[in-house]
């Protein structure tokens, strides 16, 4: 059975999606357990896959039994096994944590919600494992479509932001598709490994150059990289809470993964770093992203919005780290994908818990929360510390690699940007902590007229998941060295020093 792991990791959630819908038509309560079961299966499979990859190296899976250039193949190496586990973990944890919230928000449409949820996960996992450039596009779209729907499902400004998200996301995906088309035009194949073999002979061609640029631009749009980030804060901050805690950790990270995959394994590093010579501008853009994201986060007084701006900055971290082009930087970027996924999950989940209890996401409404929700706030503090980059938490270690990479590459500007953003994050989070800590608790929350004297801890299962994520943050931090040496080192092509 383990030979089928690469396929199963996608198929389990996919098949489950349809079963969930059918089940939910029969009885609404079936939706959640089915989803949980499927995601658990997927998670276990992913972990099994990771173990297998660590033991035996790259695993290939030929769908429909056709060998790669003809058929579609899955190719699981260290890189995507790692990201796969991260995705599955985030999905599962978030699912467990948000059960009550979802029940409250989408009471009458649980079936569709969970179907979309699990399809989104299937799509993202598919993106991660697939070894076919076009298959990736399809999966990209499935993840995006479900994402749009989930994001748009909330009152207020959510539909509008989601619509903008659709526009920009579609342009991004179309550009990616165009890039793949350009590559296909000159090589005649869509398989990534095959492309990597056939491309080097064609590097001088302008087609390859423009394919590269188009792909990159498309992916940058999808991941919300700095000049193209405009959709991200709106979409994520207006989304319903259980959704933003799912989408925010995963989608941008998976896109960054795609970028890394395309750059390292389709366009080889020799092309991406040496011939194109865009490392420098990309790093500068990343610096701009970090600085801009941080300052925009400073300028807002809304919790979720602030967090989304932080995501903009984090995307800058990862992209910048990758484009440093040395081993340390890339390791940092990959490690940060995993870490940031968990971090963002943690911070968004606790934000969701807070918002669900307080009834508002204005930072000023969070007075006295340390007293009322000690556990939630504790986890929030841990997550905040991780984002700031305080040592035992995982955020520090990826930042460590990124900065080392920057030092090794001589990009002191990037280093400065990282440090600056850490400082700003410090300010951001402690601003919240101060309010939650110093200001006495009010029964009435400002002009909302929302009577929340009943503010108390989040539901038990949410607390458990929160604590679990917080522990994960520490665990990832402590085992960062192992992760890097056991997995990430093998994920990066040998040529990169």
């Amino acid at each position: 059975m383990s030979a089928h792991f690469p396929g199963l990791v996608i198929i389990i959630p996919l098949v489950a999606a349809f079963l969930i819908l059918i089940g939910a038509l029969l009885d609404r309560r079936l939706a959640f357990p089915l989803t949980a079961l499927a995601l658990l299966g997927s998670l276990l499979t992913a972990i099994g896959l990771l173990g297998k990859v660590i033991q035996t190296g790259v695993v290939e899976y030929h769908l429909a039994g056709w060998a790669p250039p003809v058929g579609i193949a899955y190719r699981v190496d260290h890189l995507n096994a790692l990201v796969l586990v991260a995705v599955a973990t985030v999905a599962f944890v978030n699912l467990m944590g948000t059960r009550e919230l979802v029940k409250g928000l989408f009471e009458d449409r649980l079936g569709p919600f969970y179907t979309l949820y699990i399809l989104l996960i299937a799509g993202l996992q598919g993106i991660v494992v697939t070894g076919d450039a076009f298959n990736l596009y399809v999966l990209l779209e499935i993840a995006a479509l479900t994402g749009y729907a989930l994001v748009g499902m909330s009152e207020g400004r959510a539909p509008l932001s989601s619509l903008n998200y659709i526009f920009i996301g579609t342009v991004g995906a179309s550009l990616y598709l165009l890039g793949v088309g350009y590559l296909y035009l000159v090589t005649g194949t869509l398989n990534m490994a095959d492309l990597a073999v056939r491309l080097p002979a064609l590097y001088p061609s302008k087609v390859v150059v423009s394919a590269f640029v188009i792909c990159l631009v498309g992916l940058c749009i999808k991941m919300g990289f700095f000049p193209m980030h405009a959709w991200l804060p709106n979409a994520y901050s207006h989304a319903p809470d259980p959704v933003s805690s799912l989408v925010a950790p995963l989608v941008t990270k998976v896109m960054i993964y795609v970028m890394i995959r395309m750059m390292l394994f389709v366009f080889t590093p020799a092309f991406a770093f040496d011939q194109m010579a865009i490392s420098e501008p990309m790093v500068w853009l990343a610096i701009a992203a970090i600085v801009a994201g941080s300052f925009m986060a400073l300028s807002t007084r809304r919790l979720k919005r602030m967090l989304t701006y932080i995501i903009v900055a984090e995307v800058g971290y990862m992209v910048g780290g990758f484009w440093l082009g040395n081993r340390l930087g890339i390791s940092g970027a990959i490690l940060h994908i995993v870490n940031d996924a968990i971090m963002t999950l943690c911070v968004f989940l606790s934000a969701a818990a807070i918002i669900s209890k307080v009834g508002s996401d204005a930072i000023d409404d969070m007075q006295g929360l340390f007293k009322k929700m000690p556990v939630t706030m504790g986890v929030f503090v841990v997550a905040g510390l991780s984002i700031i980059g305080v040592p035992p938490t995982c955020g520090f270690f990826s930042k460590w690699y990124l900065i080392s990479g920057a030092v090794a590459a001589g990009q002191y500007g990037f280093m400065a940007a990282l440090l600056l953003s850490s400082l700003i994050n410090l300010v951001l989070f402690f601003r919240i902590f101060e309010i939650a800590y110093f200001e006495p608790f009010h029964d009435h929350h400002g002009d909302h007229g929302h009577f929340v004297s009943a503010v108390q801890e989040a539901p038990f299962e949410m607390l458990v998941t929160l604590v679990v994520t917080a522990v994960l943050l520490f665990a990832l931090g402590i085992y960062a060295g192992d992760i890097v040496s056991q997995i990430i080192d093998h994920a990066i092509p040998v040529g990169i020093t």
Partner: protein
Amino acid sequence: MDTLISVKPLIAVLVSLLAIPLIGFSRSPNVREGWTFLAAVIKFALVASMLPAVLHGKEIICQVVEVLPGLSLAFRVDAFGMLFALVASFLWIITSAYSIGYMRGLDEHAQTRYFCFFAVSLSAAIGVAFSANLLTMYLFYEMLSLATYPLVTHHQDEEARTSGRKYLLYTVGASIGLVLPAMLVTYHFTGNLDFSPQGVLAGTASRGTVALLLFMFVFGFAKAAVMPLHSWLPAAMVAPTPVSALLHAVAVVKVGVFSIVRVITGIFGTDMLQAFDLSTPLLFVASTTILVGSFIALSQDNLKRMLAFSTIAQLSYIVLGAAMLSPKGVTGGMVHIAMHAFGKITLFFCAGAIFVATGKKNISEMTGIGRRMPVTMTAFFIGALSIIGMPPCGGFLSKWTLVLGALEADQIAILAVLLFSSLLNAAYFMPVVYRAFFCPPEDALFEARVQEAPLFCVVPLAITAVISLVLLVYPQPFMQLAVMSAAKVTGL
């Protein structure tokens, strides 16, 4: 050099962390404080149990986990760390006792939280003391910054908020902004960050880089309150007095200087600094801090603020000692950690006791208080003498060693600074004592009932005062440890 592998350092660090759930979930205050005491005693016992081995010139090593290639979370107990850990863990016991009196006396809120974070802070302090490399040290350093934040802002009012902000911005900001990159650059040059007696940076970087790094480290450990980055310390005096006492006389600020000394000796290496002739700017900075801090202290009316500026000045003695790069100087600096700790904590305890008993904070309001609170003010006197460096107290010893060090290093200017600052110390402490004992009390100032502070307050401060005295004649473990480590780092 023998090394022992043992998990004792790890346990010593963790013991107070483990106590947190116990403290946190205790139902009654008595049980809670019982746990605190127990943790403190166990911790001290663990630390002390390692003392003989260290005194025999051994090092105790404990590697926990390798977090980055060539970098692991590791502990190593050597003489210098031992010195600091000994001071810190011993004072925790005393401070715990004092806190009980203080907190109960003032009927403070959120005492559970207070004790929890106190325990965390201590863990962090011991962690810094025992850390084997810069990374571990950084980890605990940050942990300490964050754990003390709730303590500093314990009152949760507007003033606490602003000073808490300042505190964090200075300490964490500087450490992220300066130490982290410096650490990375070092790592980039050397490939590891272990403290080694002769420094790891030697021979890998140019003079300019080293100077830059030195600058970043010295200012980055803002807890040491070197001059431009000192202003958090007076601000942090809004904390409850035991906090000020332990953390701002012992743990926090000492962690700062400890880190600086560690970095100077363990990363840069005295030889290299000497070779590159980088001690002068360091000395200059430290001297400036001493003098300016003392001058400012002169003009303070609030007792705790005055003590804070005094601390700023005194801390720089330690930096100064390390920066002299001579064995005596370094020894003096190290010993000063212990001496100053006992002296200053006595002073803080006294200030707290006065506050508990009378509610007074300003010196001008304390006229004649010595008659009402003789024990407290006597202890204050002893502490002040110790800080000034007058003979009957331990402070004399460390200052004397420093002076010897200055002579050894041919730094006449430093000598002058030391002496002049001692004068200044005397100038700002003595009026207090004078006013307390010799001026007639103005009746309007005190209610008739004012008596000594609660027993839990008075006993600890008496103990520390006595120890300050004792240290002059029997400075043994500290002195020996300091000499050992100084010998090691300076290679003599």
